[in-house]
């Protein structure tokens, strides 16, 4: 399928050396329009170098880089300016101008590279500042705001020109788990809303898999893997063992639940030994319309809800031998190997009661703390159960559970507090 599509950016046999040290040695890669592509690899293996070639900050010693089929080193000045004007770059350390306020930093690319009036610039900048939840710190200097806010300022600056391609150089470095996921969620949300092509460098495995359409694996100076996150799980190569497995923890940092890979391993080891006629229960939990929740309450609040949900799932279903994993950015899957559906319904009932009474109360702080949410907003948690057998594929069982999903908890929240239903 990829062979039929024309990549928006393509590397052909790119070689780059610094002195005697070769960093990229015949790199071939393709980036497709409108997708989120993540470049993974160990530190110091040339990921940032790869990104800097795209924006022209570095030139290859050999090989070619193509934009929509045209070699960028053969572009004339106008073509080059048009090309480079379509790309934004978000630096690993943000690269904010410390003598300028947040507003001035975000306004910079518009002020110096467009003919927009001051009023038009201010409107565009304020729109991005509001989207990235920086309104209150617009007049502050980077040194006066938190690391997370600095990251969002850099993101706002990267997006203010409405670029076609955005390059993110380790956007989540140095952030706490909630903030990391909030930034990744922000990237995914803006990518969907604005439709740009995103290329990320990230070590946040498996979190980054939730938002990526494609993964590029840089290993031993070459791209050894190009494909979907699902395909990477079946990639039999030292890259997978040495890089993916070493970076991917047993537990996901945000929720404390199993990573998807370990979830599958546990499923296979626990259920393979069982009698084929035995049954087990599977449950799927989902935070409905997460993008809308993020837009209404903020990305941090949305990630806090995901974390709270994960904590309560672990508390109730882990206690009866169940194991869970985050399946997508807003969905959890749970296997109860020693319970049938009837027993699972009982456990789910207890979970719903506890989550409504206590879990949702924790969300009051989240919703009240965010002053951007002036109106009331509904957070809906859905859940579905299904019965499985050891010989049935886990994906099929999960699909049944999804089919049975219905709202189990609704939470009305706003600046004045919240209420559960």
């Amino acid at each position, binding site marked *: 399928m990829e062979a039929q599509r024309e990549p928006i950016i393509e590397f052909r046999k790119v070689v780059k050396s610094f002195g005697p040290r070769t960093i990229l040695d015949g790199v071939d890669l393709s980036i497709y329009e409108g997708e989120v592509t993540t470049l993974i690899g160990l530190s110091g293996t040339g990921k940032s170098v790869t990104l800097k070639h795209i924006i022209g900050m570095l030139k290859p010693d050999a090989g070619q880089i193509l934009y929509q089929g045209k070699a960028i080193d053969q572009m004339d000045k106008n073509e080059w300016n048009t090309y480079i004007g379509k790309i934004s770059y978000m*630096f690993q350390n943000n*690269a904010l101008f410390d003598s300028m306020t947040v507003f001035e930093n975000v306004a910079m690319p518009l002020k*110096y*590279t467009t003919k927009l009036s001051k009023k038009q610039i201010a409107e565009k900048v304020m729109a991005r500042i509001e989207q990235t939840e920086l309104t209150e710190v617009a007049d502050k200097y980077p040194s006066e705001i938190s690391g997370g806010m600095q990251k969002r300022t850099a993101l706002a600056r990267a997006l203010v020109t409405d670029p076609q391609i955005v390059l993110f150089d380790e956007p989540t470095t140095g952030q706490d788990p909630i903030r990391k996921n909030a930034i990744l969620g922000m990237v995914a949300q803006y990518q969907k809303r604005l439709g740009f092509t995103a290329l990320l460098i990230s070590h946040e495995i498996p979190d980054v898999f939730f938002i990526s359409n494609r993964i590029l694996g840089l290993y031993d100076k070459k791209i050894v893997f190009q494909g979907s996150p699902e395909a990477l799980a079946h990639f039999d190569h030292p890259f997978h063992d040495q890089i993916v497995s070493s970076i991917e923890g047993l537990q996901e940092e945000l929720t404390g639940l199993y990573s998807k890979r370990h979830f599958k391993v546990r499923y296979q080891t626990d259920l393979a030994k069982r009698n084929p006629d035995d049954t087990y229960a599977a449950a799927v939990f989902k935070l409905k319309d997460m993008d809308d929740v993020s837009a209404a309450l903020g990305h941090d609040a949305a990630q806090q809800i995901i974390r709270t949900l994960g904590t309560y799932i672990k508390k109730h279903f882990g206690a009866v031998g169940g194991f869970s994993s985050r399946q997508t950015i807003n969905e959890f899957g749970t296997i109860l190997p020693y319970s049938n559906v009837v027993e699972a319904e009982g456990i789910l009932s207890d979970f719903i009661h506890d989550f409504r009474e206590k879990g949702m109360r924790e969300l009051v702080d989240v919703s009240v703390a965010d002053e951007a949410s002036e109106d009331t907003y509904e957070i809906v948690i859905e859940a579905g159960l299904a019965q499985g057998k050891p010989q049935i594929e886990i994906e099929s069982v999960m699909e049944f559970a999804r089919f049975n999903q219905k709202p189990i908890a609704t939470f009305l929240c706003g600046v004045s507090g919240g209420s559960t239903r």
Partner: protein
Amino acid sequence: MAEPQSAPSAESSDAHVRPVPIRFFDAFGGKALRLNNSLGAFAIFFFRAFILIFRPKQIAEIVQQIYFIGARSAQIVMLVAFFTGMVLGLQLYFVLVKFGSVGVLGTAISLTLIREMGPVLTAIMVTARAGSAMTAEIGIQRISEQIDALQTMRIDPLGFLVSPRIAAAVVSFPILTAFFDLVGIIGAWVSGCLLLGVNSGTYFARVISSPDFSDIMGGFYKSIVFGLLIVTTCCFQGFFTHMRTDSYGAKSVSLSTTSAVVISCVMVLISDYVVTSFII
């Protein structure tokens, strides 16, 4: 059992084999080539930045730099000028009194300050105050990738960071020099006339009549040349701080700042001789 001895590397054995004159010329030639490259890079850096002064949206940046280089340096320049004038008045009085020529104190003071000391000392003071700050600021922007960020935003770093400073130097240096000359003459009047008793009327009559238009313009030409050299040197050192091979990070900024100040001062004195030899 004895360890086998490692063979000397080809490079080191070659160094031993080469005769001394060859090694001398090798080292000398290498340094000459590096100097040549640096001078070429410096010239290209200056001309590119100079041309970019005339692009749109520079006025606000230039005014800001005139304030930083000019207005903010005025106090220290005038303080130094006052005491320089006082010392000159003192020294020249005791020389001239031996020849019974204290009447020409105003001539000696005005010509010394306007032709030489005004432009040179102003340049050195601005190097110490504004030049070092320029190098440090641009150096930090370089190591924190702010200059790379400008490139990714299609903003020419030379036009954004260097051109306004060059334009500001052309405006600020002659004005600061004029202030230096004026305050220096007043300083010499304080020590020569008020403290040592030279007639004030004679002093000021000589100050007004001695320098001609070419002396005043010569001082201004010098100050413009010094301004261009200092700003370009300081910005150049900061801009390429990441290319230093002797240090990295904050240390490289510190060494670049030191180099900028030293090179600027040396260049001021060398160019002073060159410019003077042309205008005399």
